[in-house]
């Protein structure tokens, strides 16, 4: 069954596969897959949008909705694929990225993440009246909290970015080889079926 036609086609395929792998190795792989990643930072929500692991989504529409799907606000990603906005209200948020041409991705922020920031803000307000105790050297709880939050934010930012990047992997070598294997397997099944006839 492996006539000359097949061998010629096979040669073409091998050339394509190898050139693809070369390209994959040479450039950061980009995919036709879009992702949006969002995290809450104090009372601001940051989002990052990408095509796969590579290219940033520039000028993509970001829609922010509550659980019921009511739109709360909308914006566009900047040149780095980022868009930040203040927490619009204390509900779970659904953030939708519409990168045009049928590309769309979603990210969900549960209520707990948003309430978490809000409670700490509320706590500082409650505790601040107790803070001005007569000791001259003491730093108010509020100040400590601000300092800790600032430091934590600085330390955690790279981690958040790393996490965001790891959530958006491009197709791997394994995926490519696996897919080709599946196709050849199906081909075998088709040939088997036809052969029995």
């Amino acid at each position, binding site marked *: *069954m*492996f*006539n*000359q*036609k*097949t061998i*010629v*086609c*096979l040669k*073409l*395929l091998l050339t*394509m*596969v190898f*050139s*693809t792998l070369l*390209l*994959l190795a040479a*450039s950061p*792989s*980009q*995919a*036709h*897959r*879009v992702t949006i990643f969002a995290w809450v930072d104090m009372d601001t929500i940051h989002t990052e949008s990408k*095509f796969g692991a590579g*290219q940033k989504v520039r000028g993509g529409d970001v829609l922010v909705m509550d659980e019921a799907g009511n739109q709360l606000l909308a914006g566009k990603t900047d040149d780095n694929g980022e868009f930040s906005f203040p927490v619009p209200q204390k509900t779970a948020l659904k953030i939708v990225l519409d990168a*045009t*041409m*049928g*590309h*769309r*991705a*979603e990210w969900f922020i549960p209520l707990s993440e948003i309430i978490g920031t809000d409670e700490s803000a509320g706590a500082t307000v409650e505790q601040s009246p107790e803070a001005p105790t007569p000791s001259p050297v003491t730093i108010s709880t509020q100040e400590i909290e601000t300092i800790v939050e600032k430091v934590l934010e600085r330390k955690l930012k790279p981690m958040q970015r790393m996490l965001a990047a790891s959530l958006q992997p491009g*197709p791997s070598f394994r*995926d*490519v080889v*696996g*897919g*080709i294997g*599946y*196709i*050849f397997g*199906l*081909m075998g099944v*088709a*040939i088997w079926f*036809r*052969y029995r006839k």
Partner: protein
Amino acid sequence: MHISEGVLSGPVLITGIILAAAGTGIGLKKLDFDRIDQAGILSASFFVASLVHVPLGPSNVHLIMNGMVGLLLGWSAFPAILVALTLQAILFQYGGITTLGVNTVIMALPAVVGHYTFRGIVRVNPKAFLPAAFITGALAVLLAGGLAALALISASENFLEAAILLATAHLPVMIIEGIITAFCVGFLKKVQSGVIPV
């Protein structure tokens, strides 16, 4: 060109599934025993082609190669492309499972049109098979863009706007695929002219 989940409305998705099923049925019926190997190999080529990104233009575009698949396979491009798209959806998260039908039609229908265009041109002028291959490769991408824009009407995107955006974004892809298709056909003509349908 791969439309993601949650963009299209129900009726469009169902229409896509019905059309894709019909096309796949015709394609499987027309697939001769000694062409199964070819279909499999072209399906694999289509599967990997989407990983080759074209760093030109304003958007993120990749090769499609539906023209090449259609040129050699005709209606059998439907099952070949359906299989490749399914694997792309599962392994690469390109497009989605619910949009599989629509995406198959978007890419396979222009492939079939390309097949008959190529045969038509070659029948009129048997020497013009290289330009015919170029036209097939480019036309299939252009038509796929048109179909994608048509499907996106339901997503409340303005048809003309989406069509223009898709066409401009895929202009470099059209030219590159035209050249690749012409190159492949030229190569096949020299080595094994029986593969090329006339």
